[in-house]
């Protein structure tokens, strides 16, 4: 009798303990250790435990879909609005609160997902080989101009950052014009696409090309020395240029979090997102990943500041379009022979 009582008691404790297990489950495709530190700060502040499952975005999405109703995922955190947009069928609305709405401009969020940090996809050029006159008024659309023939490097079409950029171009110019643009891009390429964004910047530094298209944080990353002294020296040989300043502004994208369908800890998930948008967290993020902050009143890392802060961001094109036009973008690039 006594044993039964003890065992029942233990079960009761375990059961009750689990009822009140305060936690939130994140599936994160971001690979920064600094994120883990951030989550620990959150736990200290709120007592909510953060369980992180990390992996590549494709594998994580696959997992969420396969687990279906059994999935314990609350938040899906990844880079690029295109990914979040394409995954919307598996996200639920309700990732909204007055805090989130105040912190994040409406073009960087939807009810199902919200941006947490920003990045821009810009042009890097070699000052010795590209004159100010050539760059003046440069637009993304202008990159297909024959004057850049053999001078451009950009990574492959299967990369999400490129797909989002092309999606934005389709939204602003129409599919027909972008089809011609893609063909122009392909004929301007100095080499068949290979390597990641950093490899494109290094190609310009090495003299293989004159201009490259890549995200903003990569230059800061190389300048910081984290990739070795050679890349730090190479990074000094290129300069950033923010396109479309006379028009709608430079193409912006986000790192963001989406609320997964059937999330077991919805309230905690919203709390975590609000924390990530707090000044403390934003400072932590931008100083480790070289992204731009989402909220006002926080300054990016000095190396990013040096690249120029007073550029016009494209706030007109809502990032939700990147997911919507992703299939078109891929189709247009593939048809143009963009490998």
């Amino acid at each position: 009798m006594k044993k039964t009582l003890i065992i029942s008691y233990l079960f009761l404790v375990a059961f009750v303990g689990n009822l009140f297990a305060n936690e939130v489950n994140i599936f994160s495709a971001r690979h920064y250790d600094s994120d883990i530190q951030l989550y620990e700060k959150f736990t200290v502040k709120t007592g909510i435990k953060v369980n992180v499952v990390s992996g590549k975005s494709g594998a994580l999405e696959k997992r969420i879909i396969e687990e279906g109703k059994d999935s314990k995922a609350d938040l899906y955190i990844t880079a690029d609005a295109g990914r979040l947009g394409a995954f919307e069928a598996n996200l639920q609305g309700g990732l909204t609160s007055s805090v989130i709405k105040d912190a994040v401009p409406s073009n960087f969020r939807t009810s199902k997902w919200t941006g947490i940090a920003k990045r821009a996809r810009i042009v890097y050029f070699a000052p010795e080989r590209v004159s100010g006159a050539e760059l003046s008024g440069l637009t993304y659309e202008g990159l297909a101009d024959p004057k850049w023939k053999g001078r451009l490097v950009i990574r492959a079409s299967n990369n999400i950052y490129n797909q989002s950029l092309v999606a934005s171009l389709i939204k602003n110019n129409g599919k027909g014009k972008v089809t011609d643009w893609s063909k122009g891009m392909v004929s301007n390429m100095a080499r068949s696409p290979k390597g990641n964004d950093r490899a494109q910047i290094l190609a310009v530094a090495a003299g293989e090309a004159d201009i490259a298209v890549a995200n903003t944080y990569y230059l800061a990353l190389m300048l910081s020395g984290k990739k070795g002294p050679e890349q730090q020296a190479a990074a000094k040989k290129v300069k950033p240029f923010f396109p479309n300043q006379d028009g709608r502004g430079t193409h912006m994208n986000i790192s963001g979090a989406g609320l997964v369908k059937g999330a077991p800890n919805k309230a905690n998930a919203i709390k975590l997102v609000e924390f990530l948008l707090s000044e403390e967290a934003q400072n932590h993020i931008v100083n480790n990943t070289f992204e731009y902050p989402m909220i006002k009143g926080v300054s990016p890392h000095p190396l990013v500041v040096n690249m120029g802060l007073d550029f016009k961001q494209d706030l007109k094109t809502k990032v939700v379009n990147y997911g919507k036009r992703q299939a078109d973008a891929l189709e247009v690039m593939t048809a143009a022979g963009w490998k």
Partner: protein
Amino acid sequence: MTKYNIWFFSSVIIASFVALPIITVFLSFFSETSSYYSVLKNTFLYDYIFNSIIILFFVILITFFLGVISAYFLSFYEFPFSKFFSWALILAFAVPGYIYAFSIIAFFENYGTAFSILTFLFGENNYNLFIPKIDGIMGATLAISFSLFPYVYVLTRASFYYQSNNYIEVGKNLGLSSRETFFKIILPSARPAIVAGLALVSMECLSDFGTVSFFSINTLTTGIYNSWLSFDDLNTANQISFILLLFILFLFSIEIYSRKEARYHQPGRGFKPITKIKLIGKKALIPFIICSVILFISFLFPVSQMIYWAIKFPKYFHDLNIINLNLNTLYLVLLASIFIVLVSLFINYGDRVSKSRILNYLTNFSVSGYAIPGVILALAFITFFSNVSDILSENLNIKSSKGIFIGSIFGLILAYFIRFFSLSFNGIKSSYEKINNSIDESAYLLGYSKVRTFSKIHIPHLRTNIILVMLLISLEVIKELPMTLILRPFNFETFATQAYIYASQDLLEAAAIPSLFLIFWSSILILLSSRYILSTKN
């Protein structure tokens, strides 16, 4: 009369497991695929086939030359360090193709290791424009060739070792020069072994995923994986798998045929090992240089590149959870090898005791699993168990049982089993056959039970081979990438998956340390195996 005993049913179960991936792929071939990407799919398919074949062609060419030339020098000649080279060249097995790929990129990219070395030696300059950019198909071909040539080397060398003395004598009697003897008699007679080696190389090459996906080449394997991952189109994935399996089937039949032919070329009685010709001075230079270059490129180069990075970016050493990685890998390796060996012993014993021909066919079929590319096997595994789980939950209201097989260690070990059963089964079988059946009979006459016969008589004879088989399975499990990547539980990484994930996340330098551990443990396993192989020969 077939006895429907436990051995029979076990063999049926095992054979069915192995047949699963093949059948799943076959059935999917006739299913609907997503029309959304059908246009893209059609354009890509020719790309996949073309690229897979081009890489295969050059890999066969390169491994043929590397394997045969090194086997030639090390079988017939003795020169400084030849004894060292004879086992050292096998170490190329310790470097899987994808790690080799990391090293190539690290070394030849703009501002990479080659640039740093040149700057260090000759001062600042823009060397980048002169450094050859090795990647894409050329990079993949080189990486795969250097990691697979030991197959040809080992098999060719064994063939030279076992038969050549007789043929050399025949050549002498016919009055042929040593060169004519080699090209007209010895080389052709080694043909079955060479072809078997090349067939193995081909199957591994077509099956490769890590290397080609790292270089972003569209091949059949990456097509399968991307169809599943990006397009969520399991049926397209399986259709591409079907085409790949056709190629594999072709190569597989070549390999089986060659192996059968090789048996006719076994030495008769009176086999004498070759007296090697001693080379000294200038004559020893060419073989020495060639072997050194091969050893350097296939093993020392990738290892040095990884060490260089580990030292240059020490931060990753602290960040990485090395102990966990080691424990995870050890855990997987032990579980897999023990499980696979136990089942192999069981089935081998059953084969021996039952003497049933149907059983024989079943087991012979079961061992074909090694030919199935890891990607196909993993996806077929998922397809099958997802479907079964869905059927069960709909009809029997059982809660989703997917988790038991997909994303679990158990499921992963099952998948390893299908792929590596052949290695274990045949390894044990070859030494089991050496135990004469009459010994069993005598034991039974003396009143030994079947179990006692097994434990007191069979096991001691098999012990060396069992250890060897466990070493070889461990080696395969440590290096395995696609199946582990697809089927592993979350937050469970092995050296292979961790290195690959870092590499694909723009953190290539961080891949150095898991790669080094992988190479280290693989090298130890290879060295232990070669010791055991040598001891069984004696």
